[in-house]
């Protein structure tokens, strides 16, 4: 052995002693770690294991630099780099060995598919071994195997580069799932690489859609499968296929068909994000309410994997809204606010309109429609103030202007609000002429004109609003006959002219108070 090192650089014995010392330390570490019971590791090992993703960057960086230096050293101007590479390979090899130990400890945590872990482990060990081998070869005296040494070195470098890449890729797959890199890949690249670029096709016909595969599964794929798939099974649960879902995880079944309240899956996705059991964990954005409702609906109807949407007779509102938003899906022609297509809301415009003292509220969670009320401003609100709402014209669906100074001029501006479904104009200054501006309304269902100066003549304009369902005209000059005529002209319209005067005593009085 000593002859092997006789012609090496000064201090080489020291180097050898260091190398043996470090190698011994790593071996000791491995023996220590081998003694851990894999079924029930102590928390301190799991704590150390969690540093693996951190430690692993050290050998990657060091070895890549070493390889880069080896390549550059070919060129005369970078010749001197060659002297540094043995140290780098040694450092890379030792840190890779330590990272392997930490990686083993991390694997004791469980939740990863054993085959994938094993592959990654052996590749990682390979990196450490090859790096150390490269060090050894570099440290050999110049005369040893000089001819083939170059070739051996090149072979080792190539293998090391390959192993580094593969280990790193499989490590990333273990953490993030197999589709991590390709999820957002541009379609052109997909074609080049040959992976499947198809996203789930938009469901053309909701009736024939299968509840699980077309509605529930995309949600699971989007939000759950990165950690709950065949390769990475957090909590021993995979949500990739129907069999796996039914099998459940470490704590048993996660779906109780027909019993949403007993289904742990549903419980976890509806917990507040800060809760320890909440899914997705670690404070990640929780599932949308539409998504949790779809899953709840699916479980409540037996969690069947074949059932079609058409076979379920009751679709709760929240699910229907969600379905509608999936792109052109309609369970049945929806009326009112669910049928409205409106542009997304711009928060600065909304804030600007709120500055004027108006109450501007979003109608609901994920509907881009607004409820605007000027009730608080009362007399201070007039036609001119409506201008601030014009940028939001498409989004306003409920507009409450009662007891303000809005008049016919204001109604002219309101004509631009195409998505109105409810309009309060009670106790304002509008007259019959102003009603003409409402003729273009296609979605208006509720109109309140109580306490205004309109007469039967104004009703003629309202006949041109086919969507009108409820009209209130108490304390106006509208007569019962005029109201009756309007009702015959608009299908499904209810008109209330209110009490005109109440006679003395009896029961029938109230029931017979002149209300249509």
């Amino acid at each position: 052995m000593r002859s092997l090192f006789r012609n090496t650089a000064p201090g080489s014995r020291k180097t050898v002693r260091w190398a043996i010392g470090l190698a011994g330390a790593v071996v000791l570490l491995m023996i220590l770690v081998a003694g851990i019971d894999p079924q029930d590791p102590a928390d301190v090992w799991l704590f150390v294991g969690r540093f693996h993703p951190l430690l692993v960057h050290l050998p990657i960086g060091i070895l890549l630099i070493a390889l880069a230096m080896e390549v550059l050293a070919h060129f005369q101007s970078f010749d001197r780099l060659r002297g540094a590479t043995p140290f780098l390979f040694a450092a890379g090899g030792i840190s890779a060995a330590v990272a392997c130990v930490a990686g083993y400890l991390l694997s004791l945590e469980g939740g990863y598919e054993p085959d994938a872990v094993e592959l990654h482990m052996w590749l990682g060990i390979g990196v450490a071994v090859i790096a150390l081998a490269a060090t050894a070869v570099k440290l050999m005296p110049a005369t040893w195997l000089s001819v083939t040494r170059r070739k051996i070195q090149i072979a080792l470098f190539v293998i090391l580069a390959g192993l580094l890449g593969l280990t790193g890729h499989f490590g990333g797959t273990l953490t993030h799932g197999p589709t991590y890199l390709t999820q957002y890949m541009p379609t052109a690249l997909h074609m080049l690489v040959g992976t499947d670029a198809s996203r789930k096709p938009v469901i053309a016909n909701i009736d024939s859609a299968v509840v699980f595969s077309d509605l529930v599964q995309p949600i699971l794929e989007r939000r759950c499968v990165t950690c709950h798939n065949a390769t990475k099974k957090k909590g021993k649960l995979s949500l990739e296929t129907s069999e796996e879902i039914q099998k459940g995880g470490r704590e048993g079944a996660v779906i109780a068909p027909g019993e949403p309240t007993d289904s742990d899956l549903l419980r976890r996705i509806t917990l507040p994000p800060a809760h320890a059991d909440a899914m997705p964990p670690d404070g990640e954005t929780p599932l949308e309410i539409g998504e949790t409702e779809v899953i709840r609906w699916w479980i409540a109807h037996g969690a069947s994997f074949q059932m079609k949407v058409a076979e379920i007779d009751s679709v709760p509102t929240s699910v229907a809204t969600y379905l509608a938003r999936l792109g052109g899906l309609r369970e049945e022609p929806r009326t009112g606010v669910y049928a409205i297509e409106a542009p997304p809301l711009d928060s600065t415009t909304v804030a600007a309109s709120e500055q004027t003292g108006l109450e501007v509220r979003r109608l609901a969670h994920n509907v881009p429609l607004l409820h605007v009320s000027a009730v608080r401003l009362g007399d201070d609100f007039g036609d001119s103030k409506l201008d601030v709402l014009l940028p939001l014209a498409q989004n306003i669906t409920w507009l409450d202007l009662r007891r303000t100074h809005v008049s016919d001029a204001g109604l002219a501006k309101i004509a631009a609000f195409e998505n109105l479904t409810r309009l309060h104009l009670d106790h304002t200054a509008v007259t019959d002429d102003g009603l003409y501006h409402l003729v273009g309304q296609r979605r208006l269902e509720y109109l309140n004109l109580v306490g205004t100066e309109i007469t039967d003549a104004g009703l003629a304009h309202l006949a041109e609003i086919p969507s009108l369902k409820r009209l209130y005209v108490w304390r106006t000059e509208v007569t019962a006959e005029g109201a009756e005529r309007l009702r015959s002209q608009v299908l499904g319209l209810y008109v209330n002219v209110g009490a005109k005067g109440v006679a003395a005593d009896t029961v029938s009085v109230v029931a017979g108070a002149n209300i249509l």
Partner: protein
Amino acid sequence: MDFLEHFKLRDTRRQFLVRSAQGIGTMALASLLRGGSLQTANLPRAKAAGTGTDDVWRGVVNPLHYVPQAKRIIYLYMAGGPSHLESFDYKPKLEEMHDEAMPESLTKGEQMSTMTSGQKLKVLGPQYKFARHGNSGETVSELFPNIAGVVDDITIIRSMQTEQINHDPAHTFMNTGSMIAGRPSMGSWLLYGLGSESQNLPGFVVMTSEGGGQSQPIAARQWHSGFLEGRFQGVKFHSSSSPVNYVENPPGVDRSGQGDLIETVRDLNMMKDDIVDDPEIATRIAQYEMAFRMQMSVPDLVDFSDEPQYIKDLYRTEGADGSFAANCLLARRMAERGVRFIQLYHRGWDHHGNLKDGLKVASANVDRASAALVLDLKQRGMLDDTLVIWGGEFGRTPMGQGGDGRDHHIKCFSIWMAGGGIKQGFSYGKTDEFGYDVVENPVHVHDLHATILHLMGIDHTRLTYRHQGRDFRLTDVHGKVAHDIVA
């Protein structure tokens, strides 16, 4: 202010231990980021989430979970437990079996109040006649002819169920969702979740009236805010003369002078708030400012000069006379002005004896006004977004008590609801032929709460408040929305 003072004044042993795990530096950083105080879990979140740009409380449910059908609620609370068997649930079998022994199969082992348990149970037949009314053909007794007149606008729920057989726990259960006192009432939850439309009147107002039988007391805790901030509690208005005492300024003080006083008091309070950071100071400041605004809004509220005579005749009251009808009229005016939750208690339905006569008086007190309220809201176009609820805390037993009365009954009772997204001319739920138990579509108090919140646009499982380490909600861990009654 001194960093350590914050520790002493907050319940921070837990906080301290939690934060010390993150290191002293993080604590210092946390206190810097939170503006100099370590606050409990809910306050900064609630404050930040619920307060709008103009410092008005917008509610924590912002935006809403669902498109709301109702914007406000008027709850006509028939305290004492009106007999469903003489109001909305017609049981011909009881008529047949009048004075016979009550079948043991029904009553054996069932919970009964101490007044009835141990007695021999005999059926008491319905004391009044029923008839079908309106296009929907619903059966309503002759005691409620006016409500029968609006039966095509309401939904009658005959399958209500509760768990508490005595008045106070039952009121607590109906108001707060739990028989254990200390939880926020429905109105407080709604204010916490939605805020109030009106800034000049309290968002939650309660009024009481009585007539028709022994008036069981109603504790003020029924409209209390529980562990929510004090400013969400209900405010009780008087039913006769002025709803609020001392609403006018003292002689010699004008509005701007009063305003100066309020501002100064507020500044002093805020100085103390900086030191002790007590949420009740925030409540006090809010209440003073509300009181100042009410000095203007309350006189306007009770100024009945703009109320046409025929409307007063519709309710049959001149207003402010302490009657249920006057309360209804005022409730409608409050609803117009944006009060979120109005609860009108009418005490006098507890007919353990003298059922026949007592009911006549009680129903006469409320029948016309209840129907008038529905019609009046309707003609103003307000019934669409106002939810009217009529009902008590429990029903009464099919077996008689003392020969001429009925005892408390929890297994079924009837209520009706109108407006705010409720179906019209509909009835939901059925009871058995004795009117003893529910056979179809039970609606538990929790389910009622869930439905009410749903109509207001809130998912009852998502309006929560963390207290004592637990996320409380109005429906606790129960409740499902009765979608069948929603239009």
